[in-house]
């Protein structure tokens, strides 16, 4: 497939934003049972605000994936109507829902709004409730985003549960790395090891599942061949003309237009930038307590994930390409 930068930025930005929220919310709920030290509402609100900014960045990128950006205002609302059948429609519902809940979480934390909802006599019950709702919606958003790709069964590189696992793990890994840098910048040194350890664990887990999908994709047995495409049973069928010479949507949308060597290079770049380098930088940052190194870890990992997402799209081989092998 031809990788679209709008979707590359959309999926990586919202992944990091949601991961950052998971990190903040996890530390808040741990603090409520006194496993981690508690912080004031401003800390959580500030972090969730950054998460919301990432979501808005993703939304802005998504606008450029529409035919015309104006469709965002005139037509995109219809995109919520087909949630019974379309994962894209489900994503279009989950995305504003997650952003609204993030916003509610920020408001509740920043202004210290609270209520003794469950009669525990503990502070933070309202923010915990909003946070749980936001986390559940966020899980739904991760699932919808990944299933958009995993649900197309003939794009065999994508049609695997590993796609969902990778979107979740790579998003949360970058979000926890960002949370580590955020905690260091806010002087919350007591949370840095918690975020940092989880960032390393999620990055390693993401490396394992992404490597698993690379191994799987290298061994795919193609179900469609040129023989099934035109229905002629002969071992040697060769296209002589695709019916036009100037190219069309079919030749632009479904091919990445790069060489195999370029693709291999991108694969090794993301395998280095998204996994080992951030882990080393995280380790260095945790050892020295240097917030700058932790921020660099996030920047490198995010850059690596941009390469990873480009490769994810470029690697998928659409069966329609069987009809567009030779110009003529």
């Amino acid at each position, binding site marked *: 497939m031809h990788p679209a930068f709008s979707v590359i930025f959309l999926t990586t930005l919202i992944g990091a934003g949601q991961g950052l929220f998971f990190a903040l919310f996890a530390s808040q709920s741990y603090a409520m049972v006194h496993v981690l030290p508690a912080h004031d509402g401003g800390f959580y609100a500030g972090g969730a605000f950054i998460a919301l900014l990432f979501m808005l960045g993703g939304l802005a990128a998504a606008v450029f994936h529409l035919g015309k950006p104006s469709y965002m205002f005139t037509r995109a609302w*219809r995109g*919520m109507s087909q949630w019974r059948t379309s994962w894209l429609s489900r994503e279009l519902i989950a995305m504003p829902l997650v952003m609204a809940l993030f916003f509610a979480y920020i408001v509740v934390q920043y202004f210290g709004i609270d209520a003794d909802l469950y009669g525990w006599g503990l502070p933070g019950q309202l923010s915990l409730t909003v946070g749980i709702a936001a986390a559940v919606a966020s899980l739904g958003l991760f699932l919808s985003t990944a299933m958009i790709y995993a649900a197309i069964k003939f794009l065999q590189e994508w049609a695997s549960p590993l796609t969902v696992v990778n979107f979740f793990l790579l998003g949360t890994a970058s979000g926890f790395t960002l949370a580590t840098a955020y905690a260091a910048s806010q002087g919350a040194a007591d949370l840095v090891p918690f975020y940092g350890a989880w960032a390393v664990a999620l990055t390693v887990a993401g490396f394992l599942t992404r490597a698993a999908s690379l191994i799987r994709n290298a061994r795919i047995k193609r179900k469609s061949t040129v023989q099934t495409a035109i229905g002629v049973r002969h071992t040697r069928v060769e296209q002589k003309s695709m019916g036009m010479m100037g190219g069309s949507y079919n030749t632009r949308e479904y091919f990445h237009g790069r060489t195999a060597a370029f693709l291999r290079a991108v694969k090794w770049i993301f395998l280095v930038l998204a996994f080992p380098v951030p882990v080393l930088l995280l380790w260095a940052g945790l050892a020295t307590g240097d917030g700058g190194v932790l921020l660099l870890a996030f920047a490198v990992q995010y850059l690596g994930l941009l390469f990873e997402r480009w490769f994810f799209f470029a690697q998928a081989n659409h069966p*329609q390409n069987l009809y567009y092998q030779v110009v003529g």
Partner: protein
Amino acid sequence: MTQLALVIDLNVCVGCHACVTSCKQWNTSGAAGPMFDDNPYGRDPTGTFFNRVQTFEVGEFPCTETVHFPKSCLHCEDAPCVPVCPTGASYKRKEDGIVLVDYDKCIGCKYCSWACPYGARELDEHQKVMKKCTLCVDRIYDETIPEDRRKPACVISCPTSARLFGDVHDPDSEVSIAIRENGGYQLMPEWGTKPANHYLPRRKTKMHIHEDELTRADNPLRKEDIRHETSRETTLDDWLM
């Protein structure tokens, strides 16, 4: 239930592209607006087409065969492009099974084109909405057109009648009979899309001559001279006549 569809006879198609040009002509002139056409006479002409004729070579020289292969939307009975549409712009008509796009609802997200294994959909680069074969829905029901011409433009224009049009759910229709009796098949059956359009395979007309048919064992010229011997005995006829 009605399922309108095309049946394309690869045995007859000569690859003249008349269906391609007549399709473009009809559909670019309709109420839905033109199909974009950039540099039509320039170096890199490109534009939206609903129908293409491709050419494949089967076998290895000298035993090769050229197959001209017209390719358009197959109006699948289980169309994978329809459920993925987030806005409901992509739909399959209940009454006749035609898969259509409502251009006023489409947001141009291209997801339906990813979800079509045949690459039958094309984004119009100017209108920025997804377009596809409509089976000339604005023609086949138009009562101002003579009844025998209420067929898709590609079917009307085909000089060799390689394209048949009709209801594949009616077992007695011309298309159903053609599929049944001439080995009609579907493209990429492995994805379970159940395409309504069918293709008829190349068919060879072969004459079988047995070896003993090459030498004439029963030459009538020789047989003519054969006389059966007659009896010398007196027969009943001799008495009577």
